[in-house]
């Protein structure tokens, strides 16, 4: 009797285990790789500013607070889709966004910003793509969360929108800083970035 029970229950248990396993496996997008930079500093770089080629940025130029590092290019379709959200974000939140203009022509990068607005606190021009490779970038847009110590804490590959921000990135920032991301205070004079 006992053995019968085991024999009849075993397939059901096996099935349930497989369901759970595949459920999680299907939930994971195999196209999204984990960043190898997590808990490591932003790679060393020495690159010009997109708007002002005379100005050279290094790791020292990066914000000394938690910021987002957004890798984009005018050649990248999804970046065009993401841009309006970044504009909205920059008006809504105090979190600075550092742009990395990845493998783009200066003219195209500038045109993109002039036409659509500039949500970035600074834009690093990575024409050769070497900085992108050091960051482990494989598909623009990619967004990194960098903490106040300059450590990469999180990477999101793909377009950020409200849902991604609410479910993926905001919780990470809250986890790092212990408080929700700073919103732009309403009572301050409404300065829209251009």
């Amino acid at each position, binding site marked *: 009797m006992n*053995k*019968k029970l085991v024999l009849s229950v075993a397939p059901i248990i096996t099935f349930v285990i497989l369901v759970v396993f595949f459920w999680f496996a299907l939930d994971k997008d*195999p*196209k999204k*790789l984990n960043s190898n930079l997590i808990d490591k500093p932003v790679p060393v770089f020495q690159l010009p500013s997109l708007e002002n080629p005379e100005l050279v940025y290094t790791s020292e130029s990066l914000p000394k607070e938690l910021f987002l590092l957004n890798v984009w290019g005018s050649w990248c379709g999804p970046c065009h889709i993401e841009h309006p959200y970044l504009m909205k974000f920059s008006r809504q939140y105090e979190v600075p966004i550092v742009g990395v203009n990845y493998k783009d022509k200066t003219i195209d990068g500038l045109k993109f910003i002039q036409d659509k607005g500039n949500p970035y606190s600074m834009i690093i021009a990575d024409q050769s793509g070497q900085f992108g*490779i050091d960051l*482990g970038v494989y598909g623009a847009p990619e967004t990194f969360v960098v903490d106040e110590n300059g450590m990469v804490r999180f990477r999101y590959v793909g377009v950020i929108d409200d849902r991604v921000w609410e479910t993926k990135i905001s919780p990470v920032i809250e986890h790092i800083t212990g408080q929700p991301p700073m919103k732009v205070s309403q009572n301050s004079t409404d300065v829209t970035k251009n």
Partner: protein
Amino acid sequence: MKTFITLCIALASLQAFAVIETYEFKTEQQEQLYTEIINELRCPKCQNQTIAESNAGLSEDLRYIVYQQVSAGESKRDILAYMQERYGDFVLYDPPVKPSNYFLWFAPILVFLIILIAVLSKVGRRKVKPEQSASEGES
């Protein structure tokens, strides 16, 4: 001439060989090393191709980096480490055995063992008439 022969061999092989650019190397060994390495790195963008086969811009950049490093006399181990540092174990077709990859390495063996045990325990208790073994019990 040499590149032409290489190209012929490449075309003759069944692989879709999509390397567009050819690089000049100082020595034969370097060229071999380069070919060996680009055929051992997985393209992070396209995922099911080596960077030797892939047409993606990223693969082109990575091939160029491999070329530069090979020409500079870097060892294969250093070059693979360089790539792994940036793209993780994913770029290596031969991932290292370490805790985060244990599942990858040992799951097949585990499954095999489970099946083996199940089969053995069934076969071991088989009666003369196998058809009836399914309904055997302590009646």
